[in-house]
């Protein structure tokens, strides 16, 4: 009994001397400098948000929802983001219609069908490279190919628009986000365990039946999350739109029908931010541009939250 309590004491002493805090100024300085780096990054975010919100607040206080529902005008008292919002949503819809099926199809081929050969590896490397291509290069691709293509098949709108319309923008940004959709969808498919597939094959299903009825439903939350994130990326993209001729100034959309809206001049929310922050009128620079940014950030935040909720709610742990 006595020897046992002695042993406990020894352990306590050893533990204390091992755990004892040795004061180390060098170590503390190192930790503090790391912390400072992290805090500076966070402070930048806080400053940025504070700057934008303080600029935007008067606009929303004075005009409320009217700012969101008014179109672009040259008058700072009535200008709103509606035209940009409609343009961005239109682009996002076209992007979703093109990039989702193509991206999912490519991911299904690469994960479910592709043999491990040099063609497959080439496609995979190629997709990774495409994901790293600067967005403005996609703008050049759009300018050289998609704007002309849209004009060539008769959807170019009037002679002055000449294919520089929302269709060309949608195709260009769809191509831009396609690698992201493929990569995220591939990850979602890879997360489905092979036992699910083998169970399907075991009862005589063909590969397509297994994919259609078992793999895709299981991977759906991940695939959708990736698509939503890709759409958010397209929503915030500005540079390629500039190259393919988005309207950066005032233009009259009038009471155009859907076809004219698709083929005529257009603008997008981030482009509205750009053109307002370059106006000489301080009301545009100091208040309207931050207000437009706030609308943009709210949309993106909503999309990201939706993606996270989707993943947490429906993602299955195997």
């Amino acid at each position, binding site marked *: 009994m006595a020897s046992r309590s002695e042993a406990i004491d020894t352990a306590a002493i050893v533990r204390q001397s091992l755990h004892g805090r040795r004061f*180390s100024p060098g170590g503390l300085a190192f930790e503090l*400098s*790391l*912390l400072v*780096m*992290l805090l*500076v*990054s*966070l402070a*930048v*975010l806080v400053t*940025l948000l504070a700057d*934008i919100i303080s600029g935007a607040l008067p606009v929303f206080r004075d005009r409320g929802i009217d700012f969101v529902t008014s179109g672009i005008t040259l008058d700072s008292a009535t200008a709103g983001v509606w035209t940009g919002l409609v343009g961005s949503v239109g682009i996002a819809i076209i992007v979703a219609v093109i990039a989702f099926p*193509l991206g*999912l*199809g*490519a991911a299904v*081929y*690469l994960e*479910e*069908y592709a043999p491990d050969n040099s063609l497959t590896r080439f496609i995979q490397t*190629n*997709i*990774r*490279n*495409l994901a*790293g*291509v*600067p*967005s*403005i*290069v*996609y*703008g*050049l*691709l759009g300018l*050289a*190919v998609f704007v002309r293509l849209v004009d060539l098949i008769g959807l170019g709108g009037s002679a002055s628009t000449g294919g520089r319309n929302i269709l060309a923008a949608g195709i260009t940004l769809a191509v831009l986000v*396609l690698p992201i959709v493929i990569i995220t969808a591939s990850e979602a498919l890879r997360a489905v365990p092979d036992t699910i597939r083998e169970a399907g094959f075991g009862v005589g299903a*063909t590969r*397509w039946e297994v994919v259609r009825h078992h793999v895709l439903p299981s991977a759906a939350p991940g695939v959708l999350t990736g698509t939503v994130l890709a759409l*958010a990326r397209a*929503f*915030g993209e*500005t*540079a390629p739109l*500039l*190259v393919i*001729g988005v309207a950066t100034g005032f233009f009259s959309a009038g009471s155009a029908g859907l076809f004219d809206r698709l083929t005529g001049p257009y603008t997008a929310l*981030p482009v509205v*931010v750009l053109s307002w*922050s*370059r106006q000489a009128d301080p009301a545009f620079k100091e208040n309207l*541009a*931050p207000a437009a*940014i706030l609308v943009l*950030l709210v949309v*993106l*935040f909503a999309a*990201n939250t939706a993606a996270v909720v989707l993943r947490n709610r429906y993602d299955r742990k195997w």
Partner: protein
Amino acid sequence: MTAPTGTVDLRGEPRRLRRELRVKRVFLAAAVVSIAISIAIVASLAGNAIRFFTEVDKASLLDVGWFPRRSRFDLLTPIAGTLVMSGIAMLVAAPLGLGAAIYLSEYARPRVRRLLKPVLEILAGIPSVVLGFFALLWIGPNIIVELLNSPKPATILTASIGVGILVTPLVASVSEDALRAVPQGLREASYGLGAKKSTTVRTVVVPAAVSGIMASLILGLSRAIGETMVTFMAAGAVGGALRTWDPLDSGTTLTAAIASVATGSDQVAGEALAFDGVFALGITLFAITLLLNWVSDRFVRRVREKY
């Protein structure tokens, strides 16, 4: 038991098999689209760039500045701007990003980490046009003019700081993944030898993750070089710029030069040589980022192979 009179057809219904093949081809076609995109990018860039180089007056390629509308096509101007801008951006992003990554991965308590990681992700999701606005109207007046006493707010340095902020979360996120991939056993072995926490981090964890950290820096550099909006909005060049290596000058980069030709007049297609010149910048940019991404991919793969 008698042997079966006919062989059982195990290949399945022909109709089902034909559908299988059709479906497979559709998916293959979707995958091949990505190759077509790459070919289209290279072909459209190279085609127009080659036309530019054959038609341009060679002397104007070594002029003093990049003014495409006045037929001055000094390629070194946007290249110098890109080098200066991305270099300074990395001087901002590397310490901030790596510091944040090491702190989050090695020092932060799990609860702090769960709180701060999403905040960095928010920063990563901010569109570049927003950072361009912030650089132009906050960093310019408050840091460049007030703090550094520069006469003008819109300089290469203004844009560089903005791009640095933009790239920081990318560097932080990729290098944090690399640090967390270092096996716990290495840290424990170091503690077992009596090393302090800071010694362990500096001499064991960081060196073990060095490939991933390099990858994050190269990826960040590639992203900085390819970033358009911040430089376009905040670097102060309108329509063109003189060649300069001074960060407190206004200047342009490969990306910003492309954007300003595109927005300079109503029609990019209007001036043929300026139009083609944009593609010459584009292919230079494409080649640089492709090379950097390839190098960073190599580094990432080294991490994966090791652990």
